[in-house]
């Protein structure tokens, strides 16, 4: 490869890198599905989980704007953030529920013991 060809190749690849990123449709669909899953999992009922659910929704909205503006690469990263927030919202909701269940189970044991010792 001579010097001229090298410069041409560099020029072309840089052109591709700037405008060639595809619309992150799969990421958008996955992020939306994760938000739905978090909602079904009760994320809206726990304040901390609800915050991350909101962040996820906001970021999906931002990503959609970025896609519209043609900034697909930024949109893909925003959707990664949205997905992470949605997954965290679901995990927090599940943790909260599990802790509530454990506490209730302990209370039941306490009540039963009290009943028996009467």
């Amino acid at each position, binding site marked *: 490869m001579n*010097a*001229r060809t090298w*410069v041409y190749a560099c020029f072309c690849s840089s052109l591709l890198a700037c405008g060639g990123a595809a619309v992150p449709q799969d990421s958008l669909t996955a992020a939306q599905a994760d938000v739905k899953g978090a909602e079904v999992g009760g994320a809206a009922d726990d304040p901390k989980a609800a915050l*991350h659910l909101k962040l996820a929704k906001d970021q999906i909205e931002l990503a959609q704007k970025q896609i519209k503006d043609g900034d697909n690469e*930024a949109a893909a*990263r*925003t959707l*990664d*953030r949205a997905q*992470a*927030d949605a*997954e*965290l919202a679901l*995990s*927090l909701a*599940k*943790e909260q529920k*599990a*802790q509530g*269940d*454990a506490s209730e*189970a*302990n209370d*039941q*044991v306490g009540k*039963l*013991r009290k*009943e*028996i010792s009467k």
Partner: protein
Amino acid sequence: MKAAMTRTRTITTHAFSALRAAVPALFALGLGSLMACGSAAAPQELMDARTAYAEAAKGPAADLAPAQLDTAKTSLDAAQKSFDSDGPSQKTKDLAYVAQRRAEIAAAEGGREKAERKRAAADKDFKSTEIEGLEKTKEQLEAERRAREAANQDVNKTKAELATEKAARAEAEKRAAAALASLQEIAKVKEEARGVVITLSGSVLFATGKSDLLPIAQDKLNQVAKALVSQGFKAIVVQGYTDSRGNATDNQTLSLKRAQSVRDYLTTQSIPPEKITAEGEGASRPVAPNDTADGRAENRRVEIVVTPDKG
């Protein structure tokens, strides 16, 4: 056409020459920028991600959510790598943001798993406590059953004792009735205010003017004693009486001696001495006129006054 081609070639050659001249400068600029990256402070997102990962790794996630923690580490490494190569770029910040969330997810999953294990242990505890409670209830019911059984046995025992006592009483009453009946054959039995009075004729017990018991008297007194023992009593007073003939003092003495003879004999027949006394009444309280032989015979007598046990 040829001239145009030559012009183009000339422009290209000039451009190429210019680029060649600029290479060292561009290289220096690139190196400088890289150096700048290397020394730049890590963005807040990356620092938060590191902290979040360190906290998650210290918590239950290390044992209970190792896969999620590993994912968080991979994300953190990617963010770190991006920072190393690109500095605090938006990409680095985005990757760090995701890494922080992954660490928080790992922590939450660890917490969830821990809580679920706690609940499982509590459920197990609940079941064993429930079994313990049932066993306790069973024991209580068994104890109650045993107590009831014992109470029933006591009731049955008491019933049996009462029946035995009733039978014994009936038997005793029968014996007493029989003794009274046989007593009525040899003596007069009368219920008075002072008690039950058994009157024995003096001629049956003693020879005239004597105070020693006749042999036949002992048989009669045996029956009297038997009746007294079977009936039960509180106290007995043996009173001797004479007719009105002769000296009153002698009559008094004789009546007392006779009463004492009867009393002494009865003590030999299971009558406790402390419960029986003797009195001489002389010719007092005649039960018949003293001007006929039959009347006088009736007045010569011994009365056994029995204070009954009841009342």
